[in-house]
């Protein structure tokens, strides 16, 4: 059995560490949602950095999702209403978030499909962790889904197309360039009326263009669930453990050093009288994100 935790912030991190302490045998899947660069919560990079430390320590499998990617996908699907001049989302925040959340919900549904329905190659949730995480610290998995469903977009005519699509940048829920890194492992979770030979054929084809690490050349984990998502014939979820995910840590880094944010950096600290202990935590988190500049500033003040 395993727990799935999609969160953003302090309470989520604390819940995660509580689960880890009280239920050490339960696999903890975390889906942290990263804020977009223009997020209007001032302390969001600060919160994100602190949360990441907790997540990395207590989560078994971490599937980062970026708001930016979700917005882009919603745009692609024609479901997000965007002002083309100002490049801002014009519909209500609630509606926009609902659409974005449904994409994340799809990821969770696809992961649990094998546990809920029948299939010829069941993939239990704990199998995902076993096969995709070769070292306890290399536990970031980039999620990508295909086909991207919307009434406006025609469904792919041929089954093989969804395998190619899921490896294109625009289908990922987190903007990292998988082609630049090396794959440590990759899961392909399929739903629908597919047979094992359909999978074999496509995995053979994808293997030619995918760079796996030398000791895990066949690092694919495939699952077949016979029940597709509603209104679709087939769907695929890929979870890629790729070395380029270290770049995702740079999201925090870039946000923290951008001029807008540093101005506000110390206000919350003074305003809320944060204790030294919490501050040390922040310093450790920054180490994770390679942010030596911030460290230096903090040390100078205390």
């Amino acid at each position: 059995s395993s727990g799935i935790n999609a969160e953003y912030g302090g309470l989520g991190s604390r819940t995660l560490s509580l689960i880890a302490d009280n239920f050490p045998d339960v696999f903890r899947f975390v889906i942290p949602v990263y804020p977009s660069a223009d997020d209007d919560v001032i302390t969001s990079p600060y919160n994100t950095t602190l949360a990441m430390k907790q997540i990395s320590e207590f989560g078994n499998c971490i599937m980062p999702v970026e708001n930016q990617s979700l917005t882009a996908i919603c745009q692609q699907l024609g479901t997000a209403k965007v002002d083309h001049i100002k490049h801002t989302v014009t519909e209500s925040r609630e509606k926009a978030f609902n659409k974005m959340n449904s994409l994340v919900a799809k990821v969770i549904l696809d992961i649990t499909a094998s546990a809920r329905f029948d299939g010829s190659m069941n993939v239990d949730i704990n199998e995902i962790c076993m096969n995709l995480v070769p070292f306890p610290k290399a536990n970031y998995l980039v999620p990508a889904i295909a086909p991207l469903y919307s009434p406006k977009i025609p469904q792919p005519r041929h089954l093989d197309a969804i395998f190619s699509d899921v490896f294109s940048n625009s289908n990922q829920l987190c903007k990292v360039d998988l082609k630049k890194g090396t794959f440590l492992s990759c899961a392909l979770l399929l739903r629908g009326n597919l047979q094992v030979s359909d999978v074999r054929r496509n995995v053979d084809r994808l293997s030619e263009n995918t760079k796996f690490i030398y000791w895990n050349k066949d690092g694919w984990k495939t699952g077949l669930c016979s029940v597709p998502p509603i209104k679709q014939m087939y769907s695929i979820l890929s979870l890629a453990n790729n070395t380029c995910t270290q770049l995702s840590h740079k999201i925090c880094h870039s946000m923290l050093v951008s001029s807008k944010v540093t101005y506000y950096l110390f206000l919350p600290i003074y305003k809320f009288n944060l204790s030294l202990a919490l501050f040390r935590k922040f310093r450790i988190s920054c180490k994770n994100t390679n942010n030596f500049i911030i460290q230096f500033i903090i040390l100078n003040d205390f």
Partner: protein
Amino acid sequence: STQSTGVQVGQCGNQLGEALFETVYREQSSNARPGSSASAYCRETAARFFTPGADGGTLIANAVLVDMENKVVAGCLSRRHAGVWTYNPRCSVLSKQGSGNNWANGYCNFGETKEEEISVAVKVLLHSLPDLRVALLLMSAAGGTGSGLGCRITELIRDIVPGVLLVNQVVLPFSQGEVSVQGYNMLLTLSSLYQSSDALLLSHNDSYQTLSRRLIPGTSSRDCISFREMNRLISSHVAGVLLPASSAKEEEKKGRLIHCDDIVEHLVPHPCYRLLTARMMPVISEHSRDYTNTTWEMLGKYSRQMLIQNSIIDEGLIWSIKPRSELLTTNKRTQNLNVSVSNYIVCRGSEVALPEVEDRFKVADLYRNEKTKLLCGYSAATFDKLDKSLFVIDNSAKNGHFLEDLLSDSWLKFQANAFIYQYEKFGLDREWFKESFNVIEKVRRDYENLLPKK
């Protein structure tokens, strides 16, 4: 008559086991005709694999079903196959968590927590099988339950009934990755079974998928093959070997019935060599049967060539590779022949001319130290309504060929220390892995040494 039982472990084991019992039952009922020899065959088949149910018309499969997830076994238990046979729900052990593809979880964790329940299920089965001689454990080597727990159950049955011969039907995964840690799981499985089991009958998914294409007429490489078709084929191979057959001696007109334990004892004369492969001819779809005329000569010729090249498919055979005695040229260099420790062939069907087939397999070159070790069985009953069918099960040198890649790939991972922490969580350590590498390396070397030096 001898009794045998199946033990289905994990998703693959249970799906395959069900297909096997379906095949056996199909043979039993399709050969049921008035006439003394036919009915003796049917009685023997039923006696080997089933026990009569409480009410007259039903049969209960001799099987124990184990899985750490509930969907597959629940499915098997719910079905009344062909309206006649069922599984015994008291001989099943289920759980909900799954083993997570972790051999150590299956072997160490569930092996301990589920030991009691499994012992009880096995003993319930044994109660109805006083003449049990052979237990066939069906499992995959790549998963977590079939592989890990399957190995533990093998040891358990050995403890409960030491006199029974254990044969493990092990399904090996596609070489192009189904499971990242399949190499480790295969290594741990094979090394554990080499210490606790009597014989390992290996099936490679790659080969069976290619072979399954033959059964579907007009199938191109793009068409889909399901596990169902592959399981049916594996079942045909296994059933063809275990279904009743008699040895026909020249002096006697009527042969002695060959029991399952005779087969195992013949195939595994030496504890170093325990890897078996089953092959069958012909493999043709129902549709093509009307157009195909088979002769025993042809079946014998093709089957032997398949054995020589270690293939289960009768395509792509290189006929120039022959035993020395049959080479036309004076250049008698040793070729890439397969060398067997021992073989068992079974001819099923009409007008069996056993000496014809036998002679083909009695060539000294094909055996270790040129000591021919061949057992022949025959049965007038047909298999799968095929007029003539030939089954070969061998313990030959090339059966160990795949171990080379397995060892090198897994060693790379082991040196990088990849995934090891997952196994360590359940009590396995690097020493256990090193031990497994040693055992399998020895098996590989032993099999390689059977082949003549170049």
